[in-house]
């Protein structure tokens, strides 16, 4: 008996019991469908995060004031005021792989327009900030060199701030008060949405760093230094250069802990993607359980089918089928059944992915890999759960089987 005729026998038998076969494979259909949808959602979420991380800026390297052990207690990142404008100047001058550098001085304050107050974050930045973060304006202009040089009282509003303070007016050209100082609004930033951690990136007002330093905060230390590497490939080199420059500038001897931390975009992405990977794995585990339950359903029906077809087994044995032929017949039938379930489930999962993608706006993607895994796994379920019923069928005594009513 070759595989082709075994599959033909299996298909004929499945067709003879079309309704029951369909119900039998329903569990596998749902299981495979769930796996395919879960993988698609996982892929979509990962792509979404990748896009958000890319939105942070191209080839971005973030330097933050970092854990200092000078007092014997290790603080977290950002716990010390260790970064200064001198560091920025040094990086600009000495690092070859850092194309753009911008300080970020952060402070929180009240933005006031007439009788409306809105507490927001103020970032004092350099001209290059906009290129580093690839952040453009939806109205007005970005900061220019003259703004920085003269510590001009100008600002750009994030989309959230602009919408809140000027719900029905164009903010460009208007004046608002930040920490009591009147500032002219020269532009509105494009909406960037939330970070992977859920912070609203559009709830911000950007001001020349020189203005923040001279007029707004007593703070001379920097919250962050943003660096853009010359290319994606240059990111590791840029990180190394910046580290060397800062260690030298901060007089940190070899072996001593640094008082700053450097993160590149890859690390940020990895952190975010790690979270979704865990989620996807969990969802996959749930989906796999339903596939398992589907397999048990197949075993159940195959056992019923074997009993029902005792006489058929007797006839086949009388006509010359070996035990192994009967075993192969029922095993192939179980595999064809569950494989069919796999194919239908994949179709269902693909359709489900499209629906989920449409509802969430995520780029859910059914990959060939997930289809191959789903169908292979379901066929394996067929072999595993088809084995016991097939063994029972093969063990029948032909005389008893022929006499079975």
């Amino acid at each position, binding site marked *: 008996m070759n595989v082709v005729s075994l599959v033909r*026998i299996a298909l004929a038998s499945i067709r003879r019991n079309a309704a029951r076969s369909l119900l039998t494979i329903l569990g596998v259909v749902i299981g495979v469908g769930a796996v395919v949808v879960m993988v698609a959602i996982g892929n979509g979420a990962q792509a979404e995060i990748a896009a958000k991380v890319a939105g942070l800026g191209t080839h971005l390297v973030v330097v933050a004031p970092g854990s200092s052990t000078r007092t014997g207690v290790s603080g977290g990142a950002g716990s010390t005021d260790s970064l200064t404008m001198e560091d920025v100047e040094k990086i600009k001058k000495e690092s070859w792989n850092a194309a753009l550098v911008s300080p970020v001085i952060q402070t929180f304050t009240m933005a006031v327009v007439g009788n409306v107050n809105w507490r927001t974050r103020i970032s004092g930045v350099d001209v290059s900030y906009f290129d580093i973060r690839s952040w453009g304006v939806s109205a007005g202009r970005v900061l220019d060199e003259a703004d920085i040089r003269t510590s001009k009282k100008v600002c750009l509003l994030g989309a959230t701030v602009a919408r809140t303070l000027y719900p029905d007016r164009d903010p460009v050209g208007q004046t608002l008060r930040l920490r009591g100082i009147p500032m002219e609004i020269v532009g509105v930033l494009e909406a960037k949405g939330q970070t992977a951690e859920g912070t609203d990136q559009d709830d911000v007002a950007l001001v020349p760093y020189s203005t923040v330093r001279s007029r707004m905060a007593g703070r001379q230390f920097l919250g962050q230094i943003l660096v853009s590497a010359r290319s994606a490939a240059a990111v590791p080199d840029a990180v190394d250069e910046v580290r060397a420059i800062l260690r030298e500038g901060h007089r940190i001897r070899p072996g001593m802990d640094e008082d700053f931390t450097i993160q590149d975009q890859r690390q940020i992405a990895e952190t975010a993607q790690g979270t979704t990977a865990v989620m996807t794995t969990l969802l996959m585990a749930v989906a796999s359980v339903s596939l398992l339950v589907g397999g048990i359903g197949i075993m159940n029906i195959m056992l019923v089918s074997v009993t029902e077809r005792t006489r*058929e087994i007797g006839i086949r044995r009388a*006509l*010359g*089928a*070996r035990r192994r032929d009967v075993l192969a017949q029922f095993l192939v039938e179980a595999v064809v059944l569950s494989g069919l379930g796999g194919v239908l489930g994949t179709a269902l999962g693909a359709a489900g992915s499209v629906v989920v993608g449409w509802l969430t706006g995520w780029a859910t993607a059914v990959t060939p890999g997930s289809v191959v895994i789903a169908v292979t796994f379901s066929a394996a379920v067929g072999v595993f759960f088809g084995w016991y019923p097939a063994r029972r069928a093969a063990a029948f005594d032909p005389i008893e089987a022929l006499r079975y009513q």
Partner: protein
Amino acid sequence: MAPVVEIQGLVRQYQTGGGLLSALAGVDLVVHDGEMVAILGASGSGKSTLLNVLGCLDRPTRGSYRLAGVPVESLDDDALADLRNSRLGFVFQSFNLLPRTTALDNVLLPMLYDRDGRFSDPEARAREALRRVGLGERLFHLPNELSGGQQQRVAVARALVTEPRLLLADEPTGNLDTRTTLDVMALFQELHRQGTTLLIVTHEEAVANYCSRAITMRDGRILSDRRHDPGDAAADLGALGPVV
């Protein structure tokens, strides 16, 4: 050439609740090519057990059985299956066709298990076998679309299609009325004239009358073994007159 069936001192015992039961208690039997043998007996006479052993579905407890020269008692399960496939054809009382399967596919069934590649064009053979039993026009009918007589003809075609050395029939007319019984017996006689060796287990004297040899069994032994001139089933069928 060796006889089709050569049985010596055949014993088949079963372990039952009430002790050892000897369904066959020493049977000697030789059947030659071209014979048409009836095995008669009441239920419990051992004729079904004999048929199971003859059909290589069961192994004797003692004694020897050679089918076409092959010693059956020493074969394993797979070899018995192959022997059934290559040397034997079965016709059963309840037809035993696969349900919801066309006549043609039913007749194709034994050739599916042929391991020697004896048949180059199974489908042509199956069509020819169905034509031989007069069902050339009903190849794609399902069993439930056929009368009892027609179903038994499909079963005969299935038994014939592999050209077996011996065709075994177990109460082939047990579920049929008089007219259809004569019809099937006429078919068997026709096959017999064409050279097929037949062995028919029955409890009907009328059926035995159409065979050239009748063996009667009782209590697991052969009571009588007689040869006679068989009746002509086709003529008797004609004498019944047309269907009313």
